[in-house]
């Protein structure tokens, strides 16, 4: 990081608050070291280590283009969704060509034995059970995009960055929109003709959206 890079006052203040002091995140430790070494009689040529700088100036500035190239994840607010669109019909073709070999023609999960070195591909399509969310009670239930995934954007993000397993990141944005539309339509979450794009995908409400709760475990005698 060049010395020419400047910091705004807010940053300094916030950083100071986050670090608990205005001398950097390691200041407490440095102070402790100095106190310890200062508390005993040191030989005349042994001194406490000097104070650490507020910043070390390590690293280089990331360019906007660099960040844009790496920052491709997609989140529920639509952050990261690219231009493009796709329909369930288009997605059926993509799925048949790129996904069905592992996930099955109807997204039912691994058909037959998985290839060596590859785990069985999970089931993607299925809404059972329609009532409630009894996954904690019934170990036999199979989780799918339709019955368990809480955000449609997560499907887009995962497919785009990691699928197909043997060629991750190889689908075009239109192909990803299409295959996500196919999965959502097959799971009876969107209309069979509904096109998915950056606006419509964010608006999809998944059946399991409200089933997730924050962690309430705190330790202590009560097991949760």
């Amino acid at each position, binding site marked *: 990081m060049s010395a020419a890079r400047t910091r705004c006052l807010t940053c300094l203040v916030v950083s100071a608050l986050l670090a608990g002091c205005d001398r950097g995140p390691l200041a407490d430790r440095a102070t402790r070291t100095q106190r310890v070494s200062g508390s005993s009689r040191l030989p005349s040529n042994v001194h406490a280590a000097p104070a650490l700088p507020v910043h070390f100036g390590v690293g280089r500035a990331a360019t906007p283009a660099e960040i844009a190239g790496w920052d491709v994840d997609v989140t529920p607010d639509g952050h990261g969704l690219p231009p493009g669109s796709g329909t369930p019909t288009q997605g059926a073709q993509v799925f048949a060509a790129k996904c069905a070999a592992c996930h099955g023609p109807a997204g039912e999960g691994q058909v037959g034995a998985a290839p060596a070195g590859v785990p069985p591909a999970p089931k993607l399509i299925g809404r059972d059970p329609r009532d409630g969310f009894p996954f904690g009670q019934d*170990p036999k239930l199979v989780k799918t995009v339709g019955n368990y995934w809480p*955000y449609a954007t997560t499907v887009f993000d995962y497919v785009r960055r990691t699928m197909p397993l043997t060629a991750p990141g190889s689908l075009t944005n239109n192909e990803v929109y299409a295959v996500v539309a196919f999965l959502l339509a097959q799971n009876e979450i969107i209309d069979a003709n509904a096109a998915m794009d950056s606006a419509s995908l964010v608006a999809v409400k998944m059946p399991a959206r409200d089933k997730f709760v924050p962690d309430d475990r705190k330790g202590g005698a009560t097991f949760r």
Partner: protein
Amino acid sequence: MHEDETTGHRSADSTSGTLASDSAPEPRGRRITRRGLMTAAAASAGAAILARLPAEAQSPAGRAAPATPPTQAPSPPQTTGAFDLASVPADPTRAPGPPTSTLGARSPFETPVRAPVGVISGSSYTPLQDLAGTLTPSDLVFERHHAGVALIDPAKYELLIHGLVELPTVFTLDDLQRLPNVSRTCFLECSGNGRGAFKTPKREMSPQAIDGLTSNGEWTGVPLAVLFHEVGVRRGASWFRAEGGDASRLSRSVPVEKGLADAMIAFAFNGEPLRPANGYPARLLLPGYEGNANIKWLRRIELADGPGMFRDETSKYTDPLANGTARQFSLVMDAKSIITAPAHPGRLTPNVWTQITGIAWTGRGKIVRVDVSTDGGASWLVTELQEPVLSLAHTRFRLPWKWDGKRAVLMSRAVDETGAIQPTLAEFRAKRGAGTDYHFSYIRAWVVEADGQVFFGADL
């Protein structure tokens, strides 16, 4: 570890290692050098010695010692010094053994191995029953990958930190190593550890098969708080989203508070650079948090105002509960323990002293007590904990015991500094549900049958 530009430490260390093997003082009365061994090879006694060496070690070209101190790094190792069971003499006091070697091999009598599932999105299990003390040897640390092991050139490694920061910054591995570093010993456990024992239990399961997805060792790296300070985290940044550089681009969201508290970008484990399977050249380390969130091959951290809701924190690594909900961001590991001996497939001899021993750990600080029962939980005995007990680390417990020859049910129960007590299987099922998917922290049981054979008490 990377070469230090200013001192050239890397080549200096490598060179001194080679020199030490030839110039270090020999033990009195037993001066044996490689050159001496080569000379001795002419004699019959010497030939017998040489026959016991690994094949590679017998090549003079491969073992030639430098005549003068080398000025460059030595050529790649020619032998790992592996030992051969067939070469073990009847009386090792009657003939010299093999010479020094480039790497330390295990005794041919000890062959601990991980148990790999063998798929790119899968696990290999640590042989807990073969380990003593608290540390996990680097080559036995469990694996859990989501698209295989990413192989990364450290010279090309970069970590991008961006998002709600003042100065989006790219750090090289050298940058990370030049910043103030810290080391700490802690456990790292996959939150799916114990799933097989819970969902598809078998009496023939070993500690490795039951709970082999946990490890413990010394990590070295740069505190994430230092990096956060360098980039200037903006107000409103409450979570950071970490992405791995593997083919699954495994991504998780973590509260910023954890990043400031004790998170680390680790580049070394047990004194050496990370193994590829454990995230080489650098990974996220979140002491006490579930393994999956400790992103290996870390390449990007984005500061944000909320979690990313990635696949591995929504459809996976969430805990369906008995009450019809699913717990999300259950990052902290619960208090837990397992007896690693006696255990299946062991067999006990009646009326002789042995010891019940195992490991305990918690994601909420220190283990303060581990109780052991030999009567299926009707009564408990306090065990001795190995000091020093470290926070967020495996803690070894031991209890000397004489088995009386009658059927016994052994259990261990960890208690941590928050007062959390490891639950019974029945309590666990009632609270979490039979269909829950992670954090299987209930009490494990071993059944000692009357004939001394030990089996996993799957339903106890």
